């Protein structure tokens, strides 16, 4: 990405180490940074979580409102995912309308949740064609040290498992909110695993310096049954077909590890 002299020196240092199977921060090639997950940290949100992935820190808040369904899906609730690159998270981030990186991040996280049918959207329909619950997943990047996709996907999943939805009653076609809460109906638990290609070697969970020198990255989301539910290649380089197949195998193993941090095996 960057083309400064310093980053070229850094690049060769990082790449040389990786060629010999080591990483600058001491990790194995297939090892994640330490992960901490906290849930229910924002009382005013219907669901929330904070994930620390090494020094990367992402918060997800979930808000639920009443709204109208899309005309082509009258019997389903609405899911909206948004990502904010908050300027306090990195000297590279600027306030203003969302850039393409934050749009991509939100859409990749959204794809994993949507395609795995993580939320039972049909249960969020109140009056078909008229009133449904609208779920807002807001990803808030607080400190950027690489691999925002995995951290955000994990935080979104953790926040969803902790989301409460208010009770309601339909009277004469009107929706009345009642006291008390229910659990958000979840059907699946997708997690995203990102690998970076650095000089032909695959590493899991690239941190910022590795992202700056990588050829390309590949994110693969797996659902609870080990099916792939979303994929996204990123970065201005290429991957060989062989590497992609290898990445899928590796990512599948890592996805189980990540999911076990959020969801206790039933």
């Amino acid at each position, binding site marked *: 990405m960057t*083309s400064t002299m310093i980053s070229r020196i850094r690049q060769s240092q990082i790449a040389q180490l990786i060629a010999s199977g080591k990483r600058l921060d001491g990790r194995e090639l297939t090892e994640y940074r330490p992960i901490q997950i906290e849930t229910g940290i924002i009382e005013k949100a219907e669901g929330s979580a904070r994930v620390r992935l090494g020094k990367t820190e992402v918060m997800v808040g979930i808000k639920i409102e009443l709204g109208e369904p899309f005309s082509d899906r009258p019997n389903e609730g609405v899911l909206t995912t948004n990502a904010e690159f908050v300027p306090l998270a990195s000297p590279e981030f600027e306030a203003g309308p969302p850039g393409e990186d934050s749009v*991509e991040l939100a859409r990749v996280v959204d794809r994993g949740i949507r395609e795995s049918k993580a939320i039972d959207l049909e249960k969020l329909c109140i009056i078909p064609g008229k009133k449904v619950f609208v779920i807002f997943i807001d990803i808030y990047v607080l400190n950027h040290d690489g691999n925002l996709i995995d951290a955000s996907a994990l935080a979104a999943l953790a926040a969803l498992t902790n989301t409460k939805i208010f009770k309601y009653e339909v009277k004469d076609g009107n929706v009345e909110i009642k006291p008390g809460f229910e659990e958000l109906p979840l059907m699946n638990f997708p997690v995203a695993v990102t690998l970076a290609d650095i000089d032909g070697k695959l590493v899991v969970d690239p941190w910022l310096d590795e992202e700056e020198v990588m050829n390309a990255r*590949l994110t693969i989301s797996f*659902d609870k049954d080990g*099916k*792939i539910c979303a994929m*996204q290649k990123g970065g201005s380089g290429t991957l060989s077909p062989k590497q*992609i197949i290898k990445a*899928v195998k590796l990512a599948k193993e890592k996805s189980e590890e990540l999911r076990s941090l959020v969801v206790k095996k039933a």
Partner: protein
Amino acid sequence: MAEKIKLIDENGIRTDGRKPDELRPIKLEVGVLSNADGSAYIEQGKNKILAAVYGPKEVHPRHLALPDRAILRCRYHMAPFSVQERKSPAPSRRETELSKVIREALEPAIFLERFPRTSIDLFIEVLQADGGTRAAGVTVASLALADAGLPMRDLVVACAAGKVDGYIVLDLNDIEDKEGMADVPVAYMPSIDAVGLLQMDGQLTPEEFEEAFNLALEGCRRIYELQKQSLKAKYLAIKESVEEAVEEK
């Protein structure tokens, strides 16, 4: 959804009469816009897409220029009349994401380091959408880049495969894309065996993914031949018109 639409019949034939591993008819034309430095047009099924390249040229705003290479800027955009329900002409989040992944598929093909401090601006206009527009957009954009005379490592060609009614199929059309079970668009440079774009949505086992991915690569190789033919066709036409002019004299 009340009634699931049947997308593949008992003989394994798709709604538009194709076999599972068959591409839609493709028409490619190079050098279609006189103002652009390079341009191309594709029809793939009912998709109709134009691509134009301007540059390498001076960068505006200037601070975006890079000292050691050109920047590639890409805008994928859908015309308001390209889909059933009018699409607002303002760029959607989908278009923002697609512009990014298409750029990232094409950047590795171009020798950007030959043109420091410049920009290459690429515009992809979807005039009619029929499923698989990002793949067709990549295919036509890479022809426009070649038409602009930019030195490239290879042509970039893209094609999608996916899962429809339980079958792994090639080159999904609009209804298969919307009602199907998974979609895997791939952009590929066949002569250097490199993948520049890979996305997926839907649900596939790793084995199904591998099958769909390999089928998409096979589709890419077939479209690659058509790409080369269309580039040659432009220059053959020029040669013929010159020869005619000489004969008339």
